[in-house]
């Protein structure tokens, strides 16, 4: 802190200048500290896991007994984990396009047309976003047992579609409302039908937002635990596998190595995709902040 002692002879202006500068420095320091604490809160746990995944000790914690890749090697042989991981990926890969399709259809209808039931259907479609996931998972469990459908990865996928596609509806409508309606009308005037307009005009314009929605939906599905837990039956998704491993406190260093690996891949992929989307959005004059702040 270079707090200048104001000299008696100096005119008032510099003194104000120094006070302001000092105040600004303090403000910056406070801000940086605060942001650092929040970053620790958000990412600290992942970093700690990553560090300990290289620790030779069987206990995840201190003392640090030197680096090893032993746990990663063990993780390679953990077939249950890889099966669950494959299941999660398969579900997310099926769920994402379904959600994009349903979300696109509903967003297009809700934001480009006026029809009698629009208010009701709009609220109804967004309802799954305010209903606790616990409730959706539990009701799915009862429902599928009542209609005699065996719980499996398919039922998980169906419930993931239910919880995730309304998010796409919301994200896409927010962008659709921003689009110039002239474009739509021009396309109709030039002889295109609604479906052709959607396919050749609206979708290309919305592509970056659709991409962003895909990131969110994929992550929601891949990371979802609560809904999957109730509707997976004897099948395992990756989050369920992590949960049961943690509960039984078994092979924790192996879980740790896998968790680190997954987080690393997730971070690389997500950062890459966001970066790409940011560029694309900017090129179309859309703002990535509008897309993210909607999720």
């Amino acid at each position, binding site marked *: 802190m270079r707090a200048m002692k104001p000299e008696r002879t100096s005119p008032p202006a510099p003194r104000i200048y120094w006070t302001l500068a000092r105040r600004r420095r303090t403000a910056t320091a406070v801000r940086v500290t605060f942001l650092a604490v*929040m970053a620790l809160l*958000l990412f*600290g*746990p*992942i970093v700690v*896991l990553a560090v300990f995944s290289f620790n030779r000790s069987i206990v995840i914690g201190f*003392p640090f007994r030197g680096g090893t890749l032993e746990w990663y090697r063990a993780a390679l042989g953990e077939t249950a984990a890889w099966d669950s991981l494959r299941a999660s990926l398969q579900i997310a890969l099926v769920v994402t396009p379904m959600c994009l399709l*349903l979300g696109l*259809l*509903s967003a297009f209808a*809700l934001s480009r047309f*006026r029809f009698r039931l*629009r208010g009701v*259907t*709009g*609220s*109804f*479609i*967004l*309802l799954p*976003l*305010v209903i*606790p*996931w*616990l*409730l959706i998972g*539990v*009701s799915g*469990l*009862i*429902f599928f047992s009542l209609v005699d459908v065996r719980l499996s990865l398919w039922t998980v996928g*169906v419930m993931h*579609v*239910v919880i995730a*596609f*309304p998010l796409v*509806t919301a994200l896409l409508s*927010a962008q659709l409302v921003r689009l110039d309606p*002239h474009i739509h*009308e021009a396309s*109709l005037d030039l002889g295109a039908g*609604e479906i052709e307009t959607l396919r050749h005009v609206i979708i290309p314009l919305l592509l970056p937002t659709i991409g962003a929605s895909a*990131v969110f939906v994929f*992550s929601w599905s891949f990371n979802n*635990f609560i809904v999957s837990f*109730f509707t997976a039956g004897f099948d395992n998704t990756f*989050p369920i596998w*992590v*949960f049961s491993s943690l509960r039984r406190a078994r092979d924790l260093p192996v*879980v740790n190595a896998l*968790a680190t690996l*997954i*987080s690393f891949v*997730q*971070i690389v992929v997500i*950062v890459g995709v966001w970066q790409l989307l*940011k560029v694309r959005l900017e090129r179309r004059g859309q703002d990535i*902040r509008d897309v*993210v702040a*909607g999720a």
Partner: protein
Amino acid sequence: MDDPRKPGDSAATADPRENHGAAATADPRENAELSATVDAGAFAMLGPVHPDERRPHDEIQEAVLDVSYAGRGNRRRWAPYVFISTPVGVLLTFFAGPLAVLAVYSFQVRSRGGDGSFTLDNYRAAVQPNILEVAGSTFVLATISMLILLVLAYPLAYFIALKVGRWEIPLLLALALSDELNPLIRIFGWRTILARNGLVNTVLQNLGITQAPLDWLLFTRFSVVLVLTASWMPYAVIPLYAAMKTIDRRVLEAASDLGAGWFTTFRTVILPLTATGFVATMVIVFIPIVSDFATPGLVGGTSGRMLASVIEDLFTRRGEWGVGSALTFLLLIVSGVVVYLSYRIARIRNLDTST
């Protein structure tokens, strides 16, 4: 019928993950009205949030819609139903259907030789003293977490939205990233940090601050609150950020020109203008916190047990689906009431500050 500001709708848009819900239901004509109303904060995602910033698009779109409805009304009348029918069908089957089944189940006893006729036994079983005790502690824990969350998220959203300049987008994307990482892995990380031989205890002992490991760090209410707070942070920051973004910069400049310090600006300008977003955020984080059972299940131990864990237990281990359904339904009703009340309060508050 088409008015997006009906009560049901309000509840739908008051959620977190989708506070731009309004955007989906508002057509351009209502858009401008909406943005001018008290809901501005909660509906931040609408875009032209400031009434002065109504873009030319809105009027054009209105006119276009009017013309197209007058002129080719017949041709387009069926179109929206074609598009909307599949999504609505999916939700009716796999969302509304299951919820209805859950409701029916909560009024039937099927296990223990029940015949499935109408009964309130499940609800009676769901309000036993020991469950009520857990419900009370759930409410306390969720409220504390929510308050801490807001106290931390509010300044963070403020910094990101108004103060960090070119760091705004990177920080926002970092938030989105942390939201997209696996929550269970994060919980695992917290266990590692808070364990008896974890990071915190080791550092404290090596520095000589404590002699023995602190045992209140993990499997206590403290750890539940800490992990809940950290886990739901993005859900709190992002809607608050959206609310702050709706503040017209000129208003802030005016405040500063008129000689307001940061605290005065904050108290008299930013806080009132984001009040609705603030309440919406409370709701947004409260609902998932109350229904989270992974966190209390993995870091809560016995003292940090929460209602969602009880429900999980009823369904998975005890096979008491009827009681579980009843309890789940009570949880839904309580959250619904919380959402509704917060919404009412937000409206009234906002009207006060705008006059």
